[in-house]
């Protein structure tokens, strides 16, 4: 009866859902995008200059001199921005894919459960009450996001004794509405302080530094490990709560763990980037449509492609109106929207269905 007894007979089994190829392709794209975003910027530095600076920081020494300003531009301004964009994009896309899996709803996104609304409220409170301490903003946004999601979970679970996907999503919508209302109200009372709140809501990597990178790396790393660890369980959940339960999985435990991990990572990401929309829905969808619906593929490929997507979008934010900046959220919507429609349409005409 045990699997061992069957070893050796029959044709070789088809390989398990393989993420290798899509992951390699996505990695190749990420490398190209990262190199491009490092080489290109509103300060038109030569490739040689950029290469010299980067090489100098990884222990190589290329001949030639670089001015202090160019040094600073490449190493202190441009690179942290590229790296932070990659981390934030990876986290938002992975978080989005995970929420979609756990709620079995393709429109679920990192903001659905109130993460955005909570983070927005936290940021607003920080800005209006302790405007002298801008360093509090990420912390406050993070705390707000976590509080909102916890509340969503409590409310969703109380509604009928235990939490179902639908009750949690509904609770999320309600909590988000209340938090957004509170935030709008506070904003109205402090009209003079609006500007920082608005720019945070639009999302931006304009002030990215290595310390932002250091700030979020632990959360993103932890969240990524936990979420990727759940990739097969998310596939099991695709047969529904009851059948997953009869397969020995506790769907509530999976959901709680995945939601906690995705929220932690997402809240950390938006605390430094502001509310960058679209990544969490667009990237996993495109990945699903172009590769495979299995979370064993969708999660890792979304992670990598999310990084590429946001690095590219931020390159657009820096370059399209140089030397001025375009809000990142605007760029992601502008690139993401049409690209999404394109993929959706070409896929549909090929398959006749979604």
């Amino acid at each position, binding site marked *: 009866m045990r699997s061992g007894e069957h070893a050796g007979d029959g044709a070789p089994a088809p390989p398990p859902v393989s993420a290798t190829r899509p992951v390699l392709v996505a990695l190749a794209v990420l490398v190209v995008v990262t190199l491009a975003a490092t080489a290109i*910027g*509103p*300060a038109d530095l030569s490739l040689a200059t950029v290469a010299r600076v980067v090489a100098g920081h990884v222990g190589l020494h290329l001949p030639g001199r670089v*001015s*202090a*300003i160019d*040094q*600073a*531009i490449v*190493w*202190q*301004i*441009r690179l*942290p*921005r590229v790296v932070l964009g990659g981390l934030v994009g990876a986290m938002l896309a992975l978080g989005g894919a995970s929420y979609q899996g756990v709620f079995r709803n393709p429109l679920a996104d990192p903001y659905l459960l109130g993460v955005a609304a909570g983070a927005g409220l936290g940021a607003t409170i920080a800005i209006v009450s302790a*405007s*002298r*301490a*801008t360093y509090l903003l990420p912390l406050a946004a993070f705390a707000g996001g976590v509080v909102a999601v916890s509340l969503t979970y409590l409310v969703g679970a109380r509604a009928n004794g235990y939490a179902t996907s639908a009750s949690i999503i509904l609770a999320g919508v309600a909590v988000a509405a209340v938090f957004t209302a509170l935030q709008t109200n506070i904003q*109205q*009372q402090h*009209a*003079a*302080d*609006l*500007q*920082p709140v608005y*720019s945070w809501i639009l999302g*931006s990597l*304009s*002030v990215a*530094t*290595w*310390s932002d990178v250091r700030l979020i790396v632990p959360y993103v790393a932890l969240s990524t490990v936990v979420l990727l660890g759940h990739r097969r369980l998310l596939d099991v959940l695709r047969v529904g709560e009851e059948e997953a339960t009869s397969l020995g999985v506790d769907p509530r435990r999976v959901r709680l763990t995945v939601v906690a991990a995705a929220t932690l990572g997402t809240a950390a990401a938006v605390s430094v980037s502001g509310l960058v929309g679209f990544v969490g829905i667009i990237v996993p969808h495109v990945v699903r449509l172009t590769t495979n619906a299995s979370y064993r593929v969708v999660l890792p490929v979304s992670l990598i492609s999310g990084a590429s997507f946001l690095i590219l979008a931020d390159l657009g934010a*820096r370059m399209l*109106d*140089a*030397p*001025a*900046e375009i*809000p990142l959220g605007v760029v992601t919507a502008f690139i993401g929207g049409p690209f999404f429609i394109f993929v959706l349409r070409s896929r549909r005409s090929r398959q006749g269905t979604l």
Partner: protein
Amino acid sequence: MRALRVALASAVATVGLALATSAGGAGARPAWPVTVRAANGAITIAHQPTRIMSLSPTATEMLYAIGAGSQVTAVDKYSNYPAGTPRTSLDGYSLNAEAVARYRPDLIILAYDPPALAAQLATLHIPVIYDPAAPTLAVAYHQYLGLGEATGHLAGARAEVARLRVRVAAIVRTAPHVPAGTTYYYELDPTYYTVTSATFVGQLLSMLGLHSIADAGGTHVSGGYPQLTAESILQANPSIILLADHGCCQATPASVAARPGWSALSAVAAGRIYVVSDSLASRWGPRVTLLLQAVASDLRRAFG
């Protein structure tokens, strides 16, 4: 339209003449009603207002400067200058016609027109003058005259405009000569929003011979208030940095110097980073001279 303007001009001339003949005495009364032009069109005011409500901190400063202060009975919560204004908890950005009407004003001045508020107030038959942020000194002077006429203080308004013209000219004349091509980065907030030379502040700074580093992208980009990339600020390497975000966001010369990569800037190395009072910098009233004066003395320290 043209006929109206001509009529207006002649009205102004008549009033001016009347004021001139009565030597600006307190007893001088223009013939009411008067019609003034503001951003919301021509406004007719039937009687000299005695219950003015200013929901614009700049207009409040202007009204007091031209001698209409005693007619002002309510101002918004940001109207903190001059001291002793009748401040209320009203916020010019979020208003409701009823809350405004409660004060029974006979003239309302707005710098921000919330959707439909002016129309609502019109149904209450309260005249509203809408004087939004002035893009140039000339427009600010024009607003002065309009307020003077509307409140019965045209002479005071004329005198104030004349004082400002003289004072601005004097500051510009005595300001240190900056080297040709001196550039500035004027920080509105810590995410690098700034001004181009096309803005009100930008024009004041142009008078002192300074150029905004944001002009490179076109002076009218983003309404003159673009958000720059850190990279382009570094590459532009401005001669001086002016911080208008000390009040809002605690930016200081030290905190700017400590930003990663910014130590490479020559303004940082030479210590040419100065704090500009945001409450001065965001208003276009009587205290523009203080702003101009402050920057002029910063320049003296920088290049003197």
